[in-house]
């Protein structure tokens, strides 16, 4: 397809961002449900939690796989630098994602108490670890990492564990926990539902506290992540939207409208990712301390031809993906009930 003089690099910046935002919104609640998993006590409750995400978690993880593939194809230099630079982080994330997947699959396949409890711990631990590591990576991207003239990472592993990155990791755990709790509310009924209703307010409070601290830390220590909004006051509307969406969550929960609360949570995530992208652009990986070495959408991208081919693929593929993702969520709508095919 011929895309005229469309800025394909910027388009792909947005598309990769959309993929990762989709991942956060969808797999975010899976990871959140996993984080809350150990707080539920009885075996039946734990199975209900697992089966709330049972039919969809696998598809949700594909957003990460495809986002990674899109990053590889559209910005190979970024893919190479970030993945090799964050080697240990990504290996740990992989191990966590492996354990998350097999814990869901294996847990209910045997009746023994020790078997189920081990997998419960594995499921919860890997969900927390995945959220934390994703947050740490985001924190480092926001802060900027040391790059040399060739765009290779030239920092150290302990350097990646700076307090700001860890703070973002904790915030991500809190965000996903709240998101997952709201999702679980939508999918459950009876005693478990009431228990979750008690927890959701605590999750919201926890997240709002993390959010406030992260916002302050960003304004104080990472001013470049607020520079564009400062320069263009009308962009403050996105900040406002983000805050209103977050404020709307406890309101909807209070009125028992869990679906709307979930939607608000999604909007809040989208606004956060939108702000993140807006402040990052045109950089993909900001070099800190030498900004001139940054990887941008222009110096790290594939050829215009590839970006065009990929956009064509995306334009064919995305409507299909949306169609069958929607139908899967439609088929499995309503409260979760256990049967013989359940996890």
């Amino acid at each position, binding site marked *: 397809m011929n895309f005229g003089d469309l800025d394909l690099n910027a388009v792909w910046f947005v598309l990769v961002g959309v993929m990762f935002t989709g991942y956060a919104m969808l797999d975010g609640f899976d990871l959140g449900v996993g984080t809350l998993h150990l707080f539920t006590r009885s075996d039946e409750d734990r199975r209900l939690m697992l089966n709330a995400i049972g039919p969809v978690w696998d598809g949700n*993880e594909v957003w990460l796989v495809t986002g990674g593939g899109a990053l590889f194809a559209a910005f190979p230099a970024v893919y190479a630098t970030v993945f090799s630079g964050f080697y240990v982080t990504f290996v740990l994330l992989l191990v966590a994602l492996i354990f998350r997947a097999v814990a*869901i699959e294996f847990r209910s*396949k045997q009746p023994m108490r020790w078997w189920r409890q081990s997998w419960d711990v594995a499921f919860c631990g890997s969900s927390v670890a995945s959220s934390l590591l994703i947050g740490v990576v985001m924190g480092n991207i926001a802060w900027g990492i040391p790059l040399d003239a060739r765009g290779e990472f030239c920092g150290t592993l302990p350097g990646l564990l700076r307090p700001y990155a860890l703070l973002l990791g904790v915030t991500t755990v809190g965000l996903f926990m709240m998101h997952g709790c709201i999702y679980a509310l939508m999918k459950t009924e009876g005693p478990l539902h009431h228990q979750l209703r008690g927890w959701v307010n605590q999750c919201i409070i926890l997240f709002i506290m993390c959010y406030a601290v992260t916002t302050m830390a960003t304004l104080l220590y990472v001013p470049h992540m607020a520079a564009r909004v400062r320069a263009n006051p009308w962009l403050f509307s996105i900040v406002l939207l983000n805050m209103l969406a977050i404020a709307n969550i406890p309101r909807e929960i209070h009125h028992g409208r869990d679906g709307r609360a979930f939607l608000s949570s999604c909007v809040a995530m989208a606004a956060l990712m939108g702000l993140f992208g807006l402040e990052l652009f045109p950089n993909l990986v900001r070099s800190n301390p030498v900004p001139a070495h940054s990887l941008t959408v222009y110096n790290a991208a594939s050829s215009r031809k590839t970006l065009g*081919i990929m956009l064509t693929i995306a334009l064919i593929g995305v409507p*299909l993906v949306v169609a069958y993702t929607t139908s899967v969520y439609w088929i499995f709508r309503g409260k979760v009930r256990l049967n013989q095919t359940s996890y």
Partner: protein
Amino acid sequence: MDVLALSRIQFALTSAFHYLYPPLSIGLGVMLVIIEGLWLCTRDPRYHQMARFWTRLFALTFAMGVATGIVLEFEFGTNWAAYSRFVGDVFGSALAAEGIFAFFLESGFLAVLLFGWDKVSRRVHFFATCMVCLGAHFSAIWIVVANSWMQTPAGYHIVGEGLLARAEITDFWAMVFNPSSMDRLGHVLCAAWQAGAFLVVSVSAWYLLHDRHWDFARRSLKLGLAVGLVAALLQLVSGHRSAVGVARNQPAKLAAFEGLYDTAPRAGLTLFGWVDERAEAVKGGVAITGLLSWLVHGDADQPVTGLRAFKPEDRPPVNASFQAYHVMVAIGVAMIGVAVLGFLHFRRTSWFGRRWVLWLLVLSVLGPQLGNQLGWIAAEVGRQPWIVYRELRTFEGLSPVVTANTVLGSLVLFSAVYALLFVLFLYLLNDKIQHGPDVDDLTPSGKLALPAREPRS
């Protein structure tokens, strides 16, 4: 050991372990489509029972495939960063296409296949099964295209020089239909169908051997043998086409497969042997003169390029390629024999007098698995010393910032995790097989419980 060796071992280990599962998903996917199709046509609840049982095994293999697959995608970036920079423009688009066309399709409809039995009608469920199967095949297509481009690059040009050089796409379809992709795709799919079919054969034969689930086992065995035989016969064609393609496009690789050093007419086909790489000769081998020339060119008098035509630094490890290739071919041929033997004995009343046939069928599941592993070893070792054939050497593809100790750490971690997973997988698989098909599944429930015809006896 250095970063190169450790990174290669890690990629080999993680991809070999991953590749135990996708062929099973692809092959069992085909079996499930056939079984559910039969159920839809005949309305015989025994096919429903079969579909339910094999779906349980399918779910287990699929989960393992998903869990171990994401590692490979990440490793391109973590361990092979220079390679990623070099090929991203070409290879990345195939990988992204795999994500968007295959993985979403598979994982979306998998939910309906596994959990939708009571929620959707038979037709919708059958459609979902077909889509999962199709998705599994799509993922095979894109990843084989990507790997084939590394074997026989096409549709690209090199931009930049030295460390900044990279491949850029010039013709997407020439990249997709590069000289080896379609032959290799056929070869991979036939092998995957066999992997699934012979798993069905193996489990069914085990039931027969222990005199359990008689009717179920006989029906499953018949279907498994049929698919296995067709795939094994097609494999002869695809294998031959692949080998001729290798001879044309990667002559050093074919020479290594055959242990051929001299370029001469009437080149012989070595049936087995041991390659002494220092003496540049095959020891203790049996060769049929002229057969290799005839297979490659259709004319025994044409010469086949030998390894001495290549500089030593451009040659792959010969004996490893030779052995992997030869054992793979032997297994491929043996699978035809196993399937034929199974069929010949199928209608005989002397089943129980022929326990060794059943035992052979029980063990047959190992054949395609071993063949798959060896086939990929032959393909990848035979491509050495190149990571992208004649464009980028393997050592040039490494991540410049990753140290040997880091890779050693992740290698140990992955080895431990995979060892644990493999034991657990076998344990659960065995448990499911021991449990056997469910009698309850003979009466479909929920939306599936439409009036069924009486089973024909």
